[in-house]
């Protein structure tokens, strides 16, 4: 199955939209499909894009105020009453502040509450380190029963929202604030638990999640010019992770680079490393935040500073391929 990509991916005028906007559309659509869906927000309705749902279904929108512990625990109670609650705040606060409540009353209690963490990553920009959530992937993927998704663009976010609306499981979805390029189309597939090969290659597997998948497409294009054939795999579902697609690619390439706009420790790259270290211990390079917090600045400036651009990743991948021999069976 070939993944359907936008045609003008690398043009100056590639369509861009914040990933969170796709969530807003998906939530409204899901709300139209299913009257059990309710939405709860902690005083960030517009910026987390719950406004359209709130306007369309005011009787199913619940304003919680700035109280993230109450946000998710009230949602747990609503789920017990047969509802499918979507909760939204900034990821730094939910799941940042209320992780124990999520652990006990949603994950262990196994209720289909949807925790939506917007404004994740350094691309939040000027607000600075307090609001640039980088640890959410690590926090959420260690919870039993929890599904963890970081959509790659706004079009996919809409599909992912509709998918978690019907998966009957505790789910976390990570969103970004800034506009990012749209690489998928209405025809591109999205299934929970599925990773997608965006571009085939043979020298290295570039695995990305969230905003970084587009940057990997940019990196792969730059690598071609330098004689390196990179395979790009978009992994929107971090948990459960698609071992089959990852293993199939790695068997061919023998090297892996992972990229995420999050702490490299404990996050998506670690999830990939956990799979590969047990099944096929290939050399792996994890691109992400290296044990530090972000800081204020323009989003582009910060992504550049922390090496989270296609150009910077291409550089790292190039050196990695040149210096590190590919994995061969029997190492």
């Amino acid at each position, binding site marked *: 199955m070939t993944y359907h990509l936008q045609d003008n991916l690398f043009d100056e005028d590639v369509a861009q939209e914040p990933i969170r906007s796709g969530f807003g559309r998906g939530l409204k659509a899901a709300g139209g499909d299913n009257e059990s869906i309710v939405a709860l927000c902690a005083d960030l309705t517009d910026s987390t894009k719950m406004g359209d749902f709130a306007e369309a279904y005011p009787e199913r929108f619940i304003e919680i105020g700035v*109280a993230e512990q109450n946000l998710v625990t*009230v949602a747990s109670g609503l789920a017990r*009453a047969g*509802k499918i609650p979507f909760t939204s705040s900034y990821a730094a606060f939910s799941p940042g502040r209320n992780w124990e409540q999520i652990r006990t*009353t949603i994950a262990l209690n196994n209720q289909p509450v949807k925790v939506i963490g917007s404004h994740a990553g350094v691309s939040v920009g000027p607000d600075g380190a307090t609001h640039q959530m980088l640890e959410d992937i690590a926090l959420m993927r260690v919870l039993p029963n929890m599904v963890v998704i970081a959509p790659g663009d706004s079009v996919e976010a809409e599909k992912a929202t509709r998918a978690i609306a019907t998966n009957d499981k505790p789910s976390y979805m990570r969103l970004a604030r800034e506009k990012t390029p749209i690489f998928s189309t209405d025809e591109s597939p999205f299934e929970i638990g599925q990773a997608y090969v965006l571009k085939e290659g043979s020298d290295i597997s570039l695995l990305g999640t969230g905003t970084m998948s587009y940057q990997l497409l940019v990196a792969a294009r730059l690598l071609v010019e330098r004689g390196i054939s990179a395979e790009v795999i978009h992994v929107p579902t971090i948990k459960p992770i698609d071992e089959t697609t990852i293993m199939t690619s790695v068997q061919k390439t023998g090297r892996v680079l992972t990229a995420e706009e999050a702490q490299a420790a404990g996050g998506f790259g670690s999830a990939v490393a956990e799979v590969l270290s047990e099944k096929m211990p290939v050399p792996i390079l994890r691109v992400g935040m290296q044990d530090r917090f972000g800081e204020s600045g323009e989003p582009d400036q910060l992504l550049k500073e922390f090496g989270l651009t296609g150009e910077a990743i291409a550089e790292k991948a190039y050196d990695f391929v040149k210096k590190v021999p590919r994995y061969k069976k029997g190492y």
Partner: protein
Amino acid sequence: MSGQLTVSQLNEKANKIRQDIIRMLENAGSGHSAGPLGLADVLTALYFNIMNFRASQPEWPERDVFFLSNGHTVPVQYAAMAEAGFFEVDELMTLRKFGSRLQGHPERELLPGLENTSGPLGSGLSQAAGYAYSLQYLDDQKHRFVYCVTGDGELNEGNIWEAAMFAGKYKLSQLVVFVDRNNIQIDGTTEDIMPLEDLRGKWESFGWHVQEIDGHNIESIIDAASMARAITNKPSVVITHTIPGKGVDFMEYDYKWHGAPPNTEQAREALKKLRTLNGKITSGDEA
């Protein structure tokens, strides 16, 4: 609900539940004694008079629901549920054992009849409020009620006051909360550790209807629930004054029994105290 029991039958039931608690905890070898014993009358009133439910059909859609917020007191809920017919009384002896449905703190998925998973303090009230919101605003089911028990030490948690604000704002009138006001928590008395008074004033200022009752007078508990159901424009809290360890004189009022179970000798003595109402009557059954 299991028919109409008289007040004296309800008191006997509470005494039986206290004996169950002592046996469970002694057999488990760990767990909390004071809170469950203190709450026996409240849980008896709830499970044998106040709440509508079908033990044989735990998911009965017309039921009232019960959320335990201070999950460490769950032995009293297990005992009340067993006595009410949710499962065999014998199963109480599996409390805290490997493979048991009766986990040290309640886990909803394991035991039909539980509405929530709790233990870490401060979250059960929000869960109850979420359910009550659904009944009042989403389901239009005005005849069902949500009952919740919280501890008093638990009121140190910020999450509780977030829930209190929420329930006050939305006037969740189908929410009835019993605060187990036993004045103790793990490290000492509540007023030494983190003072709660003016407790009535706190709840009132959050928009709640407040009652204060003797938590060992089953008629008062039933009356308070009835009053709470009649208040249709506010959530209700019943500050339920209880004696920690109630019914076993050597455990009463002593915070050291908050987190400790009786050993074999203490359990035998405690059961004797319960059967004889602390020596006031002669027990016909010393077994």
